[in-house]
């Protein structure tokens, strides 16, 4: 069992969980993920690692309640434990001295991008951070990011805080000499970032988290088209060359179970009511 040591509310439906998982913590690096399962009937879901404390033997993940399993995780409290936590999975992110690195984190993924930004800063990079979200209320990890990054920019879809949308990125990357862009967040945001950096040929890596089951290369559900090749996000990623990714295919594949996901959530909520 993996105990929830701390649970911190980051936004109305976003929590940061710290799990006791000593062996995983000893190995986990920025860019890697874990797969968790909450009970005997539970599905396996991937969550990107947002922090590691080797001394405490803990790993942190941020979770946005969207479907059944994320909502169920959101209902757990400090001191509760989950039966399954597998990791670290995936390849560690490329952390080296690139020069100036732009780290873009959208929504809940601002938490794991912070883990990468920290490592990139420690590797001697000048780190420019961008935190984005749908609205002001959904912005997370602003404090951490402002401490870690040399500069920080904020953007929201509705303009309730910072820039409206991410069009400002075009100006930013034209004005500053950026050597690398690292982005984590919703697929549409990743696509927009990659489209923005493409004309300037700025190397851009994006983290892809398609539907996964085992997370170790067995099912192939997470296959993505990258530069015309079929790759598995769980073992070849999560980082991919943003200018080569077939985002439209990924967006379509992510919608495969939209209906079932709604059914599962309603079924779970009804079950919770009867308890």
């Amino acid at each position: 069992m993996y105990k929830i040591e701390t649970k911190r509310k980051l936004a109305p439906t976003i929590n940061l969980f710290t799990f006791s998982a000593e062996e995983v913590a000893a190995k986990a690096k920025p860019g890697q993920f874990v797969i968790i399962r909450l009970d005997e009937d539970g599905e396996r879901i991937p969550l990107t690692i947002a922090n590691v404390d080797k001394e405490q033997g803990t790993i942190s993940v941020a979770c946005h309640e969207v479907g059944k399993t994320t909502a169920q995780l959101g209902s757990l409290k400090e001191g509760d434990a989950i039966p399954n936590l597998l990791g670290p999975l995936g390849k560690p992110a490329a952390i080296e001295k690139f020069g100036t690195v732009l780290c873009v984190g959208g929504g809940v993924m601002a938490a794991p991008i912070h883990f990468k930004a920290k490592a990139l800063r420690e590797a001697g990079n000048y780190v420019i951070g961008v935190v984005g979200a749908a609205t002001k209320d959904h912005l997370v990890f602003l404090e951490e990011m402002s401490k870690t990054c040399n500069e920080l920019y904020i953007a929201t879809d509705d303009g309730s805080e910072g820039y409206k949308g991410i069009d400002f990125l075009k100006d930013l990357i034209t004005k500053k000499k950026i050597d690398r862009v690292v982005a984590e967040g919703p697929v549409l945001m990743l696509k927009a970032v990659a489209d923005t950096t493409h004309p300037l040929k700025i190397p851009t890596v994006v983290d892809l988290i398609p539907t996964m089951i085992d997370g170790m290369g067995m099912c192939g559900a997470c296959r993505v088209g990258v530069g015309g090749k079929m790759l598995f996000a769980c073992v070849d990623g999560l980082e991919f060359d943003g200018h080569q990714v077939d985002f439209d295919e990924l967006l379509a594949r992510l919608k495969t179970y939209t209906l079932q996901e709604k059914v599962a959530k309603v079924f779970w909520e009804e079950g919770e009511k009867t308890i």
Partner: protein
Amino acid sequence: MSAPKPGLRKEAVPMPKQTPQERKANFKEVAIGYTEESALSEAQRCLQCKEAPCSKGCPVEMCIPEFIKLIKEHKFSDAAMKIREKNSLPAVCGRVCPQEEQCQARCTVGRIGDPISIGRLERFAADWERQHGSVIPEKAAPTGKKVAIVGAGPAGLTVAADLVKLGHEVSVFEALHKPGGVLTYGIPEFRLPKKIVEAEAEYIGKLGVTLRTDALIGRLYTVEELLHNFNAVFIGSGAGLPTFLGIPGENLCRVYSANEFLIRVNLMKSYDFPKAGTPIYVGEKVAVIGGGNVAMDSARCAVRLGAKEVKIVYRRSKEEMPARAEEIENAEEEGVSFEFLTSPLRLLGNERRTVKSIECVRMRLTEPDKSGRRRPVPIEGSNFLMDVDSVILAIGRTPNPIIKQTTDDLVTADWGGIIVDETGKTSLNAVYAGGDIVTGEATVISAMGAGRKAARAIHEFLSEK
């Protein structure tokens, strides 16, 4: 060799089964199993040949006449114990072994009638033991030697059981959340109920093996790190990677690798959605590409998930199908149809990138080449479209590369399999391997046979030290 006696009953006691009509709508086991009465009656037919030709056909060298004799004598628990001396997964083997090609193929009675139903009797003894309580055999004195096993599939569990009985301290590292490997994620509930796999793993736990789940070797610990804490390592990580065809359209929605499809259904119990959290979608028309047991399993799962029309698309003819005859027959009985000599060229989707049809071409077989094999070649102009709601690609599995990528100096073949010597030893000292990771996709029992051999070699190696 014993001569068949006159008056011997030529017909085997039949296995009671759910009718095709019944079983199409449930995931319960198809074959119901022998009663005590039918087991006794079938055991009576065994001639107790001294030479035991049947045992020679068994990859784990079970003492077959001896356990059948114990059944005959009504000593069911002893029969199970006798089987367990050589076979750590009897309830599994009694169900999924291709006995018709192994023990039963050599049965003396088989020369004049049906061979003795060894598999059914094995299953009966194992099931009887599970229902009536198992006896844990005595172990050898502790040797103080520690062994790590990578993967809790048929090979790994066999090595674990064999070595723990010899007094070694054994830890099994399983990456998934349940032990069993392909027995758990691959073989469907209706052929091998998961509670049986769990019980077999539990028994191995009772023998004193430490079984860990959620531990992916290569990521959590490397093989090299395991060697710091263990005297030997056995790698039985299986052939878990799906193969794709390399044709256009494979990334369309509702195109599954058989691995994904079966993992959803078997490991994650999608058939119980939404109670089980993992969804699945088959729709009305399903095409399964491939002709092996995995294709049959996938097709039969699709039938049970409510598909109206399930087609197996295979590029050769029925004679070349690698699936067991029994499984093909079961699939046919359940309404699965076959498109032989047919090969897919591309998958076509709609505006939502969901698969809608397959462009296929008819094939013909060439005259046998030097190796005697008839190659399928396309018949020009025979292209046609097959409407589908989902597609399952069951065209083989290859080894998982994580261990290879994370273990320096481990010698592997071009196709990814680990290369071992005749004892199961790899290029690394104290590291052994067996099962599908060495041979490529094969049977449960051959993996167990490899495990048994490696266990012997590991024991010798540890005894020398």
